[in-house]
């Protein structure tokens, strides 16, 4: 009951003029950033973190959550009108959203996408409110051994699911990220590692400038390479959706919402995967005669993709609050921002900041409402944003990347970090290495380092507790399964076993 009361107080507390004003501008800015191809939610949240670090913690976190939710939703606009996902999260939206726009139903598609995003966000928010305290209380019993395995599991599952073709590259990116976190002074003996005499490197690589580089500068280079984008010439008529039309697909909405939230909660696996999995499940569960219409402007497909990606947002915040492990790349920045503001997420949050979880739920609620209201208004005028030429927009974004990186600690070294990570991020992406595991690695590096060494001290060098504690053993087995599952010999083995059973059945 205390939980419900805290939630009630948080919701009452958030609806004040200042918060509503902040939510409106931040969500609108998020929608615009999400709409513009090349500007991602991660970049938006990272840039706003640098701008809001002087604000009171709760205002700043509210603004960042609004930016996050706004951007993930905003990307659907360009997915529908340009056939280019505004953020990677909206790639699945293009499949059915763009054909609808080509049929002259852009307004209807935008309305459905907005409603789907709203409902997805609501489902995710409910999961956030219910599961965060539950997972948090379980996490209180975790020790260093468990946290070590969580860090390894996070990198393995994230690398496995986010690498476009080869999970090996995802894992390499993840372990490189973990290495980046090793640079600078370590947390137990204050010994300076890999700084080669540089005083600036001895402070370590800050997450935010690295993220601004990898998701800002790298994107700017990628966007500037492209040839022109073309907006569909279509009249946007009625945007407000018919609720009957949407609620007809209630099963799809609930399924996509739950799947999206669950995928969000997996470390480092973000909105793009959530949208694709929701879309795929919906397509598979459709009757064969309907299945053919997917990819040709199927409303259900569009709804599934948009519900899935927005449900992922609150889902990604669950592990941030309970374990200090981000569920997605933007959530990683959000975690960084919370630390900057003196909030320490993790198992102790239930003890140290018990009301904060519910305040975050209230913030998600406010952001979701703001997204729905703004998403259905000013549609026609906002489309003009898509017409701004890249060569005019990108230098301004780059100036913000530079200033944002510099602003946090007022040192030019961070601008250098941003540039290096931008170039590195660009090259890695060209070579088909995903960025999400690397980012997760930078965050998890410290957790891995401290917890492995602490565990070894506790066990006096013995590795036995790493495999005998029940939760450790479970995470270890799942991790091994994730790796082995991707090997050729395992698949051959499964194929052979299936073959034997099939033969037996026919005999």
């Amino acid at each position, binding site marked *: 009951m205390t939980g419900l009361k805290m939630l009630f107080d948080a919701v009452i507390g958030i609806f004040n003029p200042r918060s509503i004003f902040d939510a409106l501008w931040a969500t609108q800015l998020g929608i615009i950033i999400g709409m513009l191809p090349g500007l991602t939610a991660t970049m938006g949240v990272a840039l706003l973190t640098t*701008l809001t670090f*002087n604000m009171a913690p709760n205002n700043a976190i509210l603004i960042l959550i609004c930016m996050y939710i706004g951007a993930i939703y905003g990307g659907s606009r360009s997915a529908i009108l340009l056939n280019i996902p505004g953020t990677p999260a909206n790639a699945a939206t293009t499949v059915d959203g763009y054909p609808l726009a080509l049929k002259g139903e852009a307004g209807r598609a935008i309305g459905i996408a907005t409603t789907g995003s709203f409902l997805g966000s609501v489902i995710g928010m409910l999961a956030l409110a219910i599961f965060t305290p539950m997972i948090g209380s379980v996490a209180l019993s975790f020790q260093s051994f468990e946290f070590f395995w969580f860090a390894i599991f996070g990198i393995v599952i994230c690398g496995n699911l986010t690498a476009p073709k080869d999970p*090996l*590259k995802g*894992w*390499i990116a993840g*372990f*490189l990220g*973990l*290495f980046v976190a*090793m640079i600078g002074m*370590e947390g*137990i*003996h204050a*010994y300076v*590692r*890999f700084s080669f005499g540089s005083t600036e490197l001895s402070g370590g690589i800050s997450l935010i400038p690295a993220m601004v580089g990898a998701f800002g*500068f790298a994107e*700017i*280079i990628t966007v*500037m*390479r*492209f*040839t022109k984008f073309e907006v569909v010439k279509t009249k946007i008529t009625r945007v407000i959706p018919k609720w009957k039309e949407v609620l007809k697909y209630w099963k799809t909405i609930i399924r996509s919402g739950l799947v999206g939230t669950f995928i969000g909660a997996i470390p480092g696996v973000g909105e793009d995967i959530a949208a694709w999995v929701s879309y795929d499940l919906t397509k598979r569960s459709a009757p064969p005669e309907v299945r053919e219409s997917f990819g040709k402007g199927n409303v259900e497909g569009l709804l599934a993709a948009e519900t899935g990606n927005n449900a992922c947002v609150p889902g990604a915040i669950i592990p941030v609050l309970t374990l200090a492990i981000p569920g997605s790349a933007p959530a990683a920045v959000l975690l960084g921002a919370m630390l900057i503001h003196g909030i320490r997420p993790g198992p102790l949050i239930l003890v140290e900041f018990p009301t904060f979880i519910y305040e975050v739920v209230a913030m998600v609620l406010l952001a979701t409402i703001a997204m729905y209201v703004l998403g259905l208004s000013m549609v026609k005028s906002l489309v003009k944003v898509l017409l701004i*030429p*890249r*060569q*005019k927009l*990108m*230098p*301004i974004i*780059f*100036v*913000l990347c*530079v*200033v944002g990186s*510099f*602003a946090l600690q*007022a040192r*030019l070294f961070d*601008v*250098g970090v*941003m*540039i290096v990570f931008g*170039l590195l991020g660009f090259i890695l992406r060209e*070579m*088909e290495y995903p960025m999400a595991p690397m980012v997760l690695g930078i965050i998890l590096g410290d957790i*891995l*380092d401290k917890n*492995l*060494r*602490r565990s*070894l*001290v506790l066990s*006096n*060098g013995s590795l036995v507790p790493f495999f005998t504690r029940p939760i450790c053993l479970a995470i270890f087995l799942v991790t091994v399964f994730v790796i082995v599952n991707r090997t050729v010999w395992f698949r051959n083995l499964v194929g052979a076993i299936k073959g034997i059973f099939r033969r037996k059945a026919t005999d």
Partner: protein
Amino acid sequence: MPKADFYTSIILMAFGIIVLILSLKMPTMAEQSKNPYAAPGIVPALLGIIIAFLSGIMFFRSIRKGGHKKQITGEAIKGFFIHESTNRMVKTILICVLYSLLLGHVNFVLLTTLFIFIFVLTFEYSFKERFKSQIRKVLMAAVLAAITSTTVYGVFVYLFLVNLP
């Protein structure tokens, strides 16, 4: 891609081994009567081994795909550099990196104005056309550059109370 993977795997293997060697050279802190199991080199050494191992797998895989045999032809390199997208990419990187290097040495507003002005014109101005026909583009770029740099300066210094380089 197998060719690129072949080379990157070699670089990454070398990187992993260097990390391992540097980690092993780190003090164990045992001489300060601290627990050797909390030595600072343990985790980086483990990471070095894993990175070298994973890139080793990639190395053998790229060899199996014939990555080591494929030759980089002069024409392929030429084609890459002549391609318009490469041209645009190089220009973007050069202008942005130069701007960041000059930060702190030149007045922020002046440098930012110049950066945006040059960036916009690099992609909009055509030397094949006459200057007179492009005056509008130049003026627009100048106005955009001036407005952006002063706005960013004003917002950051007076609203967000941040010092600028």
